[in-house]
Structures are given as C-alpha cells and as structure tokens.
C-alpha cells in the first residue's frame, strides 16, 4: 500500500518533470539568445580588469593597489578572468529568473488556489520545474560554455584542481542551486502578506550583486572601517557565486573549504524550512482572507 503510494508520487513528479521540459523546449530560440547574452556583461568586466591590470603594471603608475607580482587582493589577471568565468557557472546554478515574481503573480491572480484544491505541493512543483528548466539550459548552454572556457584555458594558471577540491566544487554548485531556489521562493512567498514584492526582489538583486561575489571577488570588500569582508561570512549570499569559484581557484582551502560547505548545507536547510513555514502560514492567511 505505502510502496504503491510512493510509486504513484514518484511517477507524478517524473511526469511533471517531463512536461516541464517539453514546455521549456517550446521557447528554445529565446533560450539560445538568453544564453549567449549571459557572456556580454562578463566581457565588459574582463575588459575593465584588463585595463586596470594594464595600468598597474605600467612603470611609474601609482602601484599602491597592486601586490608584488601585479596582483590585486591576491588575484592575478589570469585569476581574475578565471574567477568571472567560474562565477558565470555558479550563477547558472543559483540564479532563478522569474521565481519570485512567478510566485507573487500566482498569489495575486489566484492561480495558487490550484495547489489548495489539487493534492499536489506547490514548492515541489516549482522545484521540479526549475530543475527541468536548468537542465534544458545546460543542454543548450554547454556548447558556448565549452567554447569560451577552451579559449580562456590559459587564464586558469593552476589547471584543473585535485579530486577533493573538484568534489567540493561540484557539490557546492548543486547546493547553490537549492539555496538560490529556496531563498527566492521565500521572498516570493512573502507576497501572501504584501501583494507587491517587486521592491523586495530588487533589494535582493542588489544585495546578491554586491555580497555574493557576482560583481567582484569578495576579497575586494573592505575590512576597514567596517569589516564588510568578515560580515559576508555570516550571510548566505556568498554561496550563490563566490564560494564555488573560490574553491575551484584554491582561494578557499583545507578546513576552510569543508567548513564553508557545511555552512552552505545549513543555509540550504534553513531556507528550505523557512519556505515551508512561510507556505503554511501564507495559505492560512490566504484562506482566512477570502482567497
């Protein structure tokens, strides 16, 4: 009896997964274009750092920012380029375009009722759907990604990292997917209380840009007068972009690396739990307020 029920649920999610993939493939052209556009902002950042490193290596210029070997905050030019390319990968896992606004819209226009009426879980649906979308994305994006990384191979000065580092890198990427999902799901679920969450989404986006390492490596954050560098260690954002890249490049090593991974797990569990609580409270409020 229970076995068959598990089997039913499993086939349901599997069907949902297939259908999500089919749905995504309807818009494949839109997807290909979106994938290629992802590289554009990174290109401008690379040119910027090119100019910066160029100027600090020029004799006679003020070299106070640069370290002894033309490094900035421990990053050589090659490291910097490699970092930005790796951050694209992190973000390919952790960014969730449309998740918050999607949830908010469903709450506002009443589509969320479906999940009260049918015996199916909304967060589960969104997660499976997101996995499907990401897989389709990787499928399409793998070719341009491979091309860019092959061209930029010389910037990865240390080559491919050892097995344990590779392992942590891969696991931290998978966790960053879950973290991004549950974090944004939580923000979306706030729409049960405030119908409009656009401004919250905007704040979240800004914070992620600055504090996740999306814009620049977190090593560049100041330690004085306010210890921003130390502060981000207590926030979940760095796991969305910085952490996997830093692990790959050997910027976080040994016990620090494993501690980071454990902290990431805790953050994932925290937001997983929080999203459940918000959902429970949210629908309670929703059904109290006339649907």
């Amino acid at each position: 009896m229970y076995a068959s029920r598990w089997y039913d649920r499993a086939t349901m999610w599997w069907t949902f997964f297939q259908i999500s993939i089919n749905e995504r493939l309807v818009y494949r052209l839109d997807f290909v274009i979106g994938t290629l556009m992802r590289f554009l902002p990174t290109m401008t950042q690379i040119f910027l750092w090119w100019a910066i490193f160029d100027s600090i290596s020029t004799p006679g210029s003020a070299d106070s920012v640069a370290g002894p070997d033309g490094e900035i905050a421990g990053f050589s030019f090659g490291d910097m380029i490699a970092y930005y390319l790796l951050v694209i990968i992190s973000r390919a896992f952790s960014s969730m375009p449309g998740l918050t606004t999607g949830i908010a819209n469903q709450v506002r226009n009443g589509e969320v009722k479906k999940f009260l009426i049918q015996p199916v879980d909304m967060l589960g649906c969104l997660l499976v759907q997101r996995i499907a979308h990401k897989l389709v994305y990787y499928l399409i994006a793998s070719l341009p990604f491979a091309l860019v990384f092959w061209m930029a191979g010389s910037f990865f000065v240390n080559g491919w990292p050892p097995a344990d580092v590779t392992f942590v890198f891969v696991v931290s990427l998978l966790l960053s997917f879950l973290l991004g999902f549950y974090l944004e799901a939580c923000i979306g679920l706030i729409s049960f209380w405030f119908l409009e969450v656009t401004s919250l989404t905007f704040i979240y986006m800004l914070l992620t840009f600055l504090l996740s390492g999306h814009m620049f490596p977190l090593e560049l954050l100041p330690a004085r007068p306010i210890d921003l560098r130390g502060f981000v260690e207590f926030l979940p954002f760095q796991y969305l972009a910085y952490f996997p890249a830093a692990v790959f490049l050997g910027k976080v090593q040994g016990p620090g690396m494993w501690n980071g991974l454990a902290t990431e797990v805790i953050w994932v569990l925290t937001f997983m739990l929080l999203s459940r609580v918000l959902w429970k409270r949210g629908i309670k409020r929703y059904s109290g307020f006339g649907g």
Partner: protein
Amino acid sequence: MPESIISQMSIIEIKNLTKSYRVYQKQEGMMASIRGLFRREYREVHAVRDISLNVEPGEFVAFLGPNGAGKTTTLKLLSGVINPDSGACQVMGYVPWERENEYRRRFALVMGQKNQLWWDLPAAESFRLNQHIYAVPVVDFNRTRDELCDMLDVTHLLGQPVRELSLGERMKMELIAALLHSPDVLFLDEPTIGLDVVAQHKIQQFLKAYQEDRKSTIVLTSHYMKDIQALCQRVIIIAQGAIYHDGSLDEIVDRFSGDKIVTLQIGGPDEAFEGLRALPNVIEVEPPRIKFRVGRDDVAKTLSDILSTHAVEDIVVEDPPLEEVIAKVFTDAQDAKSLGEFGTSAAEAR
C-alpha cells in the same frame, strides 16, 4: 470513513456557515491615497451569512444570485480554498478546509475564468499530469479520457497547444481535466461564462448526460438561466450572502410571480380588436395579436370576459420569462436587505 456510513447521510452538509472579509477602502484622489498610507480604512464584506443546507448524493444543484451574492465564496468554502469564520461543513464526511489529500482526490472545482491547463502544451499533456496527480490507473484514465473527449467532440484537438484553442474548446478541455479522476462531487463556477450560444448548449448537454450517467453530485453557479433550466432540479437563490430561496425552478415562479402572460389572436373586424387595447398591463399589440399580463387569480375571469365579447382564434397562457422573475427576486432580496431583514447589514460600513 466507510462508504456505508456516507451513503446514509447527505453528501454535503452545511450548518450556519459564515464568512466575512475585509476589503481595503480606497478613497478617490491623491490626498486620500496619502492618508491611506498611514491609516487604512477597511470595509467588512459579509460574503456568506449563516448558510445552512444539505445536498443529497446525485443531486444537481444550482446557486443562483447576482454578482457578489456569495455564490463563489460558498464554492470556495466547499472546496477548502478558504475557511469560514464560524459554522460547520462536511463534504463526504471531510471538512473541506482541512484539505486532506483523500478529500482532494474525490472532488473537483472548475472555475470558468481560471486556467488549470498548461498554456503552451497540448491538453493531452495536462491530462497526463492530472492522471498522475490523482493516481488514476492507466486503464481507467484512457477510458475516461476517450469517453469525455468523444462526448465533447474534442479528440482531434488533443495535440494542439492550449493557447491555440478557442475559449469554448478550452472550457471543454478544462472540464475534461477536472473529470479525469471521476470526482464524486463536482463544483462548477460559471462554467459557460463568455461562451457563445452553441458552445454553451454543448456544455449543458454534456453536463446533463455526464450527470445522468455517473450520478455524481454537482453544484453549479451561473448567471445563465438557460444553464439552470437545462440542468438543475434544485435552485438555491443566494442574495446578500444568505439563502433566499431553496427549491425547484417551478416553485420560484409560483412563489415570486403572481402573474401570467396571456397572448390572444383575435379574428373578426378591427374595431373589436381596438377595444382590447384598453386592457390594463398590455405588453405588446401586433394586430391581430395582443399580449398582456394578468394576475394569476384573474386569468379565468378575464379570459371568459374576452371570449364572450370577441372572436378569439388562439389563446396562449404562460408563465413570465424566468429571467424576469429572477430579476424581480433579486430586487426583492435587495429591498428586504435594506429594510434590515438580514440583520447586521446596517452597521456594515465601519
């Protein structure tokens, strides 16, 4: 709960169900908007007041009422989307707003305007997903789907993305999606809204045939008297959140309309016809025919008077059109409300 117990009691039991909610009152103008930032004014809407009713298995019941009367709120309560302020309700022995999966597998709610199909995919995909959501065995699923598609004549559209279907076709697909798990209880909120006459008729026919075949219990809300006339033995008129009438359609006409409409066709000279124009409550004169309204009790006397003085070729005596009666009922309900018959309403704006 064992089937035997359920079959002995009403399939739907509602007792003193009450639900009100607050809506934000926004005044016109910018100053009012700014004031609204600091102090919000709310108005209490009594969507459902103290409703009690029972529905027996196999009944086809209509909720009828003007916009905002509480029909949809009642359906939402029954399907567990919202919970009440007070009162009790059981459907098949379950309390809807506890939202147990066992309950949710046994009913369906179709909201005319809301779309539960996947927009970009063929309906067949949505159906397949529903099969698994409700864990319908594949044999049953195939049989039910083919039967329903056949009845609604949409088999050839199964492979087309839903967004390319017409409104009527989409509504048919919505219905099929809702019925694939053979729900024991079906709630339909405005199933024919916005559809053309042909599609409306088709869906009426389908619902009628489906209900006769499966003996399922169906509760429907609608504005269209045609829907209700074609389908429901029992009509519950809801106005201002309360039940105003519960009975058959014929009873409504008997209870709320004291008039009959008489149409006469007069033979003979025109002068004789002219005399009839003086009758009270003439609706339409189109020689040699005249149509007029007569109090129910006066029909016999009026007719015999006319028959004795005129050469009448044809007589039709009928009830006034249902729309007209219902409109009157709604207005009466409104008046009754303003007289305070519904209790707390005077203190509504707070």
